[in-house]
């Protein structure tokens, strides 16, 4: 039992991508992948501590009604656990302190940023960065190219040069609170995935390759430990060649989709370091 990689995907209140995320983690090699409705955590029946890998999947938490993931962040920060003095946020801090992995995709990334979990420059998880409306003011579904930073501490992107994935969001533009924050992100190589040209040669600010006008073309962030990671594009949406928009014409596409690499890295890391 103790040798199992255990992953949890939180569902509920507008999370939409829990099923395909769970599938991607399974393909990535995890032995246990549970989709858990948030009410199960808030009832105290299911505990975060029983897992190594927490996944915050895409969707529209509370409809993104107060800005993407804002109401969702408020819930995670303030919701009490039934019949106890504790809050879910404390369990989450413990999970992080234990060196376990968290990955947020799209709405999950927005959630992490708005809870201060990314880039987590200070120890107090205060929010320094946000994700807001795309420059064109619209939700869009399109495939983009991402260049990985080989010097990043991110454990999810180890060995990656570039990757193509779909974005599906209206609020994906990364904005920082100060130049200093951006400088720190860059210095510490936390902006691990950046929108780039189709040959992965250089990052870009140009629409539509940079679909939202993100600062420094940042599409994904990690914290200094490399164990907390979030990105706007959807890796769980490219785990098989038939997910690729041009699989009917690009005959040399590998069977395995590029998004799977991120999950494989996570599982490998857990097996090596946490089991």
């Amino acid at each position: 039992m103790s040798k199992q990689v255990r992953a949890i995907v939180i569902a509920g209140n507008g999370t939409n991508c829990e099923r395909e995320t769970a599938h991607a983690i399974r393909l990535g090699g995890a032995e246990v992948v549970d989709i858990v409705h948030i009410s199960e955590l808030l009832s105290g029946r299911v505990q975060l501590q029983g897992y190594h890998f927490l996944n915050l999947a895409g969707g529209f938490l509370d409809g993104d009604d107060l800005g993407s993931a804002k109401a969702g962040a408020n819930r995670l920060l303030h919701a009490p656990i039934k019949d106890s003095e504790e809050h879910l946020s404390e369990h989450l801090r413990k999970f992080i302190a234990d060196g376990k992995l968290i990955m947020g995709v799209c709405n999950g990334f927005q959630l992490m940023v708005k809870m201060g979990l990314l880039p987590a420059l200070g120890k107090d998880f205060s929010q320094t960065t946000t994700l807001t409306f795309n420059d064109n003011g619209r939700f869009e579904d399109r495939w983009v190219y991402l260049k990985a930073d080989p010097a990043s501490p991110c454990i999810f992107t180890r060995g990656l040069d570039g990757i193509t994935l779909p974005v599906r969001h209206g609020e994906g533009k990364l904005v920082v609170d100060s130049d200093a924050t951006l400088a720190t992100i860059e210095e510490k190589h936390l902006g691990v995935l950046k929108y780039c040209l189709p040959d992965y040669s250089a990052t870009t600010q140009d629409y539509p390759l940079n679909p939202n006008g993100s600062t420094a073309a940042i599409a994904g962030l990690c914290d200094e430990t490399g164990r907390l990671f979030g990105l706007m594009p959807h890796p769980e949406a490219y785990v098989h060649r038939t997910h690729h928009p041009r699989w009917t014409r690009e005959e040399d596409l590998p069977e395995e989709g590029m998004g799977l690499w991120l999950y494989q890295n996570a599982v490998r890391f857990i097996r090596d370091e946490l089991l």
Partner: protein
Amino acid sequence: MAWRVEVGLKEGIRDARGERVKREIHEHLGIALDQVKTIDVYTIDADLSQQVVEAAAQGPFSDPVIQNYAINRPLASQFDVLIEVGFRPGVTDNVGRTSREALQYLVGHPLDAHEGVFTSVQYLLTGRIDEDTAERIAAGFLGNSLIQRWTIIPGADFNRNTGVPVTVPRVVSTAEPKVLEIDLNVSDEELMRISREGVLALNLEEMKVIQAFANDPQNQAERIKVGLTAGLTDVELEALAQTWSEHCKHKIFSAKINYDDGTGHTETIDSLFKTFIVGVTRDVRAAKGKDDFCLSVFKDNAGVIRFNDDWSLVFKVETHNSPSALDPYGGALTGIVGVNRDPFGTGMGARLIFNTDVFCFASPFYKEPLPPRLLHPRRIFEGVVEGVEHGGNKSGVPTVNGSIVFDDRFAGKPLVYCGTAALMPAKLHGKPGHVKLARVGDHILMVGGRIGKDGIHGATFSSEELHEGSPATAVQIGDPITQKRMFDFLIIARDRGLYNSITDNGAGGLSSSVGEMAEDTGGFELHLDRAPLKYSGLQPWEILISEAQERMTVAVPDDKVEAFIALAKEMDVEATDLGVFNDSGYYHCLYKGKTVTYLPMEFLHQGVPQLNLQARWEEREFQEPEFSQPLDMNATLRHMLARLNICSKESVVRRYDHEVQAGTVLKPLVGVANDGPADAAMIRPLPDSFEGIVVAHGITPSYSDIDTYHMMACAIDEGLRNYVAVGGNIDHVAGLDNFCWCDPVQSERTPDGEYKAAQLVRANKALYEYCLAFGVPLISGKDSMKNDYQIGNTKISIPPTVLFSVIGKVDDIRKGVTMDAKRPGDLVYLLGTTRNELGASEYYDMLGHLGKNVPKVDAASALQRYRSVNQAQKLGLMASCHDLSDGGLGVALAETAFAGGLGMHVDLGKVKCNEVLREDAVLFSESASRLLVTVRPDNQAAFEELFAGQDLCLLGSVTEDKELRIIGLGGAILVRAHIDDLKEAWQAPLREM
């Protein structure tokens, strides 16, 4: 007291929403502004401390990185005009609901029922704006007076200390619930007045049937036993009107029609629905024998077919036209979340896997003056697209297939078709998943949203003006998140076996959902006063028929009620026990223990008298136009590609999440640059199987101007052709028919009703004949029969329109084929015969002609062709396949070439025609059942062998030179155009929408 929290962007942060509003005000109204900035306003009507409000403003309401906030003082500065737009009382305010929940987490306890948060948006406009212009911007773009109200303050009059005055749009009602008794022993005129003034939409014959019921001594005796009097209550009359409405009973499709075919031959049709729609499905199923894949047709909220041993496939398509005309955003949003509930509430419940949407609009560039109360087509376009976008995206259901049809007659009524498919377990707790049955003693549980005055009497234009303090009843705004929570809960409840039956609350609300489920047991007892309300002051009849959204009705066995409610509560979903299903034989509602309806179930469901209709077809004199062929065919082709019905809809498609759930393997945009127009979508619903679903549709309303018979045939063929083009199995496909007609009942207002009824008969005859010929069962459908606009002397009727949706199965998604040319050297084939069929075509329409020769479908040869196409796909012989529809061969060639980023050289002389045709006719004829295919040279022999004896023309080849070159019939070059230029012409028209 009420608090006002304003949230604005910090200095230097781009206001993308403001920029978009500025751009759109210019596009919609032609008003150029210098700047638009936006501020979000939260009006908190709750007893809270300053500290809590401060925490809310800082926390969930604002984002510290980009926003600042102010409490009870204004943020606005430096503007010429301020316009603040908020909802009217009682209108669904989703952001307000979420804000209220967020506050509850902060205070640590639930707010009181009367406490709430109301949201509004402030627009700060800079530029030269006088009073009139400001009002035009507010009424013509920022707000919709049906659901919203606004405050306009010029900069000079703005008080920088107090700002905009606090208004709390709470519903104020002092009405005491009461039940009225209606005296039906009155004259015929008086009966009709009761029907008209009550917006009951019952005709005299129906009113007289109800009158007779009330006067029956035996009925009276039964009623007196339960404390009623002989006269009917208003609750009963409303229940009858709702159950007998056109919307619920489909009286026109069930009518007895006397049809005269125009040659003196007459026949009587006893129900179009039973004769043609149910009839063809029965006959197709019989012909399929053991290969019949239908599981549940016409009896549930959606149709169900077999997918594999473990899963069944559910599909339903609805329209939401009238609400979308009034409030395009709310109407369309409600359309999509509403149709979501149909498959969800089919059988024991099903998980949603994709949406489809088809819109019919007038041109967004419409320049003519509009009659009163009509919104500009561009506003409708924007609002509907945004509504479906929010509905679909937020629900986590990919929108995978659709189209937009333009015809200026849709200015009178836009058509908004929304479809949803779902997957249900073939077996659930040992029983078929598509079977449900409420049992005697089961409790009636209402789940999800609360009841308000939303959508009472559907979307009938209420003659009553909306006034301050009165809730908007005409339109609803959907709430995808409340629905999503409810679905998350119900799927778990289903899997735990906590209920016996489920259905959705749509048209007719509880009256219809409980009434229908109670047909299983033969009666029910429903306590209206137990229903949770959004606000007080609802009358018992309003509770019964309210169409408030996001609600399902569930039959829960007595011993599971507790577990059901506990699970709901834990998952933040409201579930209320409203009564029981029984076998009393009565539709029995009570309010505070007192009986308010006592109607025999049989009378309610079988009592409606059959409508009688006259239908008379007349052969109209149409002529083919005479004109000479345009000299510049390059320009003509570009103009055709830029036609609204042909051009790229990419700007709309990208706004829909078409990939969530990770099952969309053939997406709506395909090709080398991901921007070619796919014919159909292919879905892989189960990640551990390569089995797939193909969904497509056909819609050809322009042909109705010549003959609805051929319109119907062409729509069926187009749907199947699109389906087959990507790999859909022609022998495992079902159809759904959605009729949108103009009023076909002869009257003073509709003097051509008999002709319109005949058009309806002819379309139904074609539906029967072609579905039978193609072997396609119909599994579900809907009709919307009054798509006319009439105010004063202006009448606009839509062209008779049928959306024919198809859904079916593929064994292996890896055999899917897209429409883009794949590689230089591939051979270009045309399958099918080209005829002189340009009647009502895009080409004729562009030149201002209607013509006469509407395309006709030869089902036998088409079916053979489609089967061969399936064979070729299975063997991997086709590199690309694209259907020929609007704009015919010319358009299909251009699209195939530029989607593939390759050229194409073809010879028009190789096109097989049934007679000698002019070049423009060959290029733009819309003859049905044709496909354009590219094939690798290695596969030439095998491919041609498959089509031996069929109409197969080798036109030329795919080239590297990015040039579409078409050799004319005389051997000279007819078209020679760079594919980038063709693509630009095709992409430009709606790019900025």
